């Protein structure tokens, strides 16, 4: 009887999934970085906001990749071709691009000397120097491709506006302006002052100048004093190829939470780093390259990535994060116009 009542109790009302639509006045969404690091390019990514019921990607074109000649290969399959009952066929790739992308904008960056540089749209960039859209995780040497239904970035090709003349080379401590006009949207203007590059001088542990860091022990880095500025201290152990380097297996140690330092604090030109403790035992000494990085940043970059958005709204039942739409260093739209300048120092780290 009790269970009968409980079953009756569980008769819920009929609930259907319903489409959520939106009627939103779209604005441009900028992601612009003036990168002062040697060998790295500056770029402006330009997108727009999209409706909830709008497709996220649109078909762009078909790229022909290669021809599988099954006859000449004797009908044998390889990693790229599937030759069963085929004489040969062309392999093509359907190219999609974000529905949010804006290709037809006019973008100019001006410096404090009045020089203007036009940035042009470059399509289908998968990599700008070492800048790429990364949808993978590296865990103990395993490269894991993220589920696109969760992270939804897999098929996003980089379509950025870049300086194609090679003349634009941003310099530390200079002011730059940004102007963007795109048909159908409000114009965007922005400005920033690039940071000064700060050099990591030395690494200390147990009070000694070192070139090899012992895991599980705090160590210090020293860097230049600056009159103004902030920088992010980060680090990474270079694990290498897990398949060929057995010491990469099960590595732990040396990791720490990146943190900010005030470069103008003369008393703190040295900073102590407390790495996470590694409890796992090692049967033999393991030595790895350990890259320490000090990334100076301008105020805009600091506000966007460090201060962050005070997103005072949460809903555990939403399947994506939320934002009110941030605008840092820009007027007329969402996004960021910021700048960084980095210095790296590579030492060794040892587990024993």
């Amino acid at each position, binding site marked *: 009887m009790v269970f009968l*009542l409980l079953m009756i*109790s569980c*008769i*819920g*009302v009929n*609930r*259907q999934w*319903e*489409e*959520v639509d*939106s009627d*939103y006045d*779209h604005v441009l969404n900028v992601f612009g*970085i003036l990168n002062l*690091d040697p060998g*790295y390019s500056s770029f402006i990514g330009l*997108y727009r906001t*999209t*409706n*909830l*019921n*709008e*497709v*996220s*990607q649109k078909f762009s074109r078909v790229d022909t990749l290669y021809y599988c000649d099954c006859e000449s290969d004797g009908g044998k399959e390889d990693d790229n071709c599937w030759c069963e009952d085929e004489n040969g066929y062309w392999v093509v790739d359907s190219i999609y691009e974000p529905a*949010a992308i804006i290709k037809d904008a006019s973008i100019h960056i001006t410096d404090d000397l009045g020089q203007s540089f036009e940035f042009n749209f470059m399509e289908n960039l998968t990599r700008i120097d070492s*800048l790429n*859209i*990364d949808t993978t995780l590296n865990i103990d040497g395993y490269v894991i491709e993220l589920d696109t239904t969760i992270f*939804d*970035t897999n098929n*996003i090709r980089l379509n950025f506006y870049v300086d194609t003349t090679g003349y634009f080379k941003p310099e530390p401590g200079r002011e730059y302006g940004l102007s963007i006009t795109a048909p159908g949207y409000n114009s965007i203007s922005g400005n920033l002052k690039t940071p000064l590059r700060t050099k990591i001088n030395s690494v200390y542990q147990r009070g000694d100048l070192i070139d090899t860091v012992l895991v599980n022990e705090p160590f210090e880095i020293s860097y230049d004093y600056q009159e103004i500025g902030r920088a*992010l201290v980060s*680090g990474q152990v*270079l694990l290498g190829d897990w398949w060929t380097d057995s010491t990469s297996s099960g590595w732990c140690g040396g990791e720490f*939470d990146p943190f*900010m330092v005030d470069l103008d604090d003369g008393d703190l030109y040295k900073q102590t780093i407390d790495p996470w*403790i590694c*409890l796992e035992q090692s049967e033999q000494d393991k030595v790895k390259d350990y890259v320490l*990085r000090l990334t100076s940043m301008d105020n805009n970059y600091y506000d966007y990535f*460090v*201060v*962050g958005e*005070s*997103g*005072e*709204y949460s*809903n*555990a*039942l*939403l399947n994506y*994060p*939320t934002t*009110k*739409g*941030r605008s840092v260093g820009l007027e007329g739209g*969402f996004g*960021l116009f910021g700048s*960084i300048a*980095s210095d790296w120092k590579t030492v060794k780290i040892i587990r024993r």
Partner: protein
Amino acid sequence: MIAHFLKNSFFRQIIFYGVLIIISTYNNLFSQSVNGFVRESSSGEPISYANVFLSNTVLGAATSRDGYFVLSDIPPGKYVINVTMIGYSIFKEDIEINDSTSIRLDIRLKEEVIEASEVVVTAERQKFERAIESSQISLDLREINSAPAFIEPDVFRTLQMLPGVQSSSDFSSALYVRGSTPDQNLIMLDGIAIYNPYHLGGIFSTFNTDAIKEADFHAGGFPARYGGRMGAILNIINREGNVNEIKGAANISLISSKILLEGPIPKYKGMKGSWMISGRRTYFDRIIKALKIPLSKNEDGSNNYFEFPYYFYDYQIKANLDINANHRLTYSRFYGDDVLYYDFDETDNYSDSNVNVNQDFQFGIDWPWGNKTNGLTWRWIISPELISKTFISNSYYRFNFNLGFDQKNTYTYSDSVIAVFQNIDYNVFDKINDNTIETEITWKADDRHEITGGFQFKDVSYDLGIGIGIETQDTVFNFSPLGLKNKTRETSLYAQDKISYSDKLKLQLGFRATDYNLHNKIYIDPRIGIKYHYNSDLALKLNWGIYHQFLTTANNQDENLRLVELWMGIPADKDASVSQHFISGIEYMSPKNIFYRLELYSKSFDNLLTVKQDNPNTIEEGSSDSTINEFWDTKGNSWGVEFLLKKSSGKLNGWLGYTYAEANYFNEPSGWHRPNFDRTHTINIVANYDLTSEIQTNFGLTMSSGNPYTKIMGRVYDWQQNLDSDTYWYPVDSYIIGEKNTERYDDYFRIDIGMTRKKGNLFGVNYDTYWQIMNVTRHLNILSYAYRTKIDPWTGNRTGVERRAIPMFPLIVTFGIKFDF
């Protein structure tokens, strides 16, 4: 702290004038009078609001909550004293008053069915005529039990049906009163503050209704004797226990069993008293365990059975000891716990060529949370007109979430044994320890003044933290990412004077001054109440007051469901939260004792603390991962109109309430916004109808505007950085949200019905059976929406967003049986 008070000139003056008044009127304390208690004949329980009067005079009084009355300044002569109360026989007795005579009467009224028309003065009318404060309502056990309930009667669910009181959802019995959140309510059991008065994440209140005598609720404008909160006051008064014989009652519902026993304390050297003990426990976990529902099989072929790892229980004890006619001691205890537990243990053995390996893995969750209170009250009738109550109490609340993960591998070689283990413990806790001492003196100075004053010393310690411990065979590592401890003391003095200027005009002036040890200032809370009787049936009321609060909860304001509340004292660098109440109202008691009330209220809030929901700048030097002690300064206001029609007697009784309410909060990131519990229009109907003398039916209806929520408007790329050895940024697809809480869910609608059949008899034991059906119309009341993204499986392309309502209560049928023995 007392020294701090004495240094303050304001307090010195108060003490000086207080002593002066008492000395100058000392003789009045012992003038001729009649005083005593009015109690039920069968059980000895005090009867509140009984009408006591002398025939052919204007002298009369209503009994207090303790059943106490005093008629003062009676000229010498012969009189007939009358005591009337609906539901009881009329008491009459001849008395003779001489000079400087005080007569003490302890009166017993026999229960008797008397039509309301015969006894003109009902308890409702007594409250109407005597009470000056606005927005106050008392519910007795009959009213609490007769309202539609979720599985079993619950005082909070009944209060949610009153105008001005809102709930956030069906799953919460927390009280949102006139724009105030539940942490702004002072919930007391026999005067002892209870910090988390809920079971099962708020679905049930901790108060076992079988033990309740009365619930005294102030939605606002409460008098100076109450302080430390700025929302509402709820004082649950437990029964005192039967002074004549041992009696009992048991109640079995779908989720729990309850039992109540009460009886007299044997008389000893003139002392007498009573006791009451009640308890309940849910038994779903035991039923599931007994049913042995197979879940999986072990390697040895034995079964793993399904378990329901949760239960709650509570018990209450109350004992009264009348040392003599003027001194009484009352002990009150409450203990209630929710317990969530789970453990998993797995052992594996295997052998290699030269080693035997034993692997032992254990995982466990142990999560108890609840309250423990103890209180001792000493009531001293110094003279018929002067009564003191001294009260000492302890209220302890804790939740303690423990998660343990232990792994031990033992390698046994031919010549040695090596053990490798790793134990990880994760602990989140919040503990509150409240020690209070309070003395209150009530003095009926003359027929125009009733003065109440006293002090309260409240010492509260808070301990909120997270602890993580890791232990291996060669390492022990403990750290606390969050550790908030503070110890606060509130020292309060208060006084109020209930002044009868005339038969028509009454005033209640009061103040409360509080020294909070973390702030170098004294908070003054003035309170004013005015009541004007236009005629014997119609009264106008005005109440104004300032209310300070010295504690808050650090819960996320947007959380979908709240399991526990995280309490903490107001930090030293934040001002005490403050609210100002302004209430005006008109009350009408019809000749048929139907009570009508229309009230307009306006409240302002300042120095509220809204906990920050996340901490994006965790990479900033000195910032922590937790935001539990980081707040947005918040202010707000609320206003509304409430209408109440209440009929307390007759075959058909109940109430109808309508509320128009607006609440607005402001903080920096969200601007002005409606809090998520705000409901603009609310209609409540609670009705009980006696079909026969054996069958009672009840009906409850709630209609209201939907709760506000924040709408998602569109999508945008937000960006994240990686600045390790490589440099890259990646987009995070995010929803753009609109202004906070500018959309509303569909209107709320729910009808509940129930029936009680009385006077059953099973083997000589009387029993009642009851049925309840909740949400009989199966209306979809939306708690929230769940969202999903439509994705093209071939391309990974998102094609839209869909949502589905998460409902509150569906149709639920429950029943139970109650025995009296």
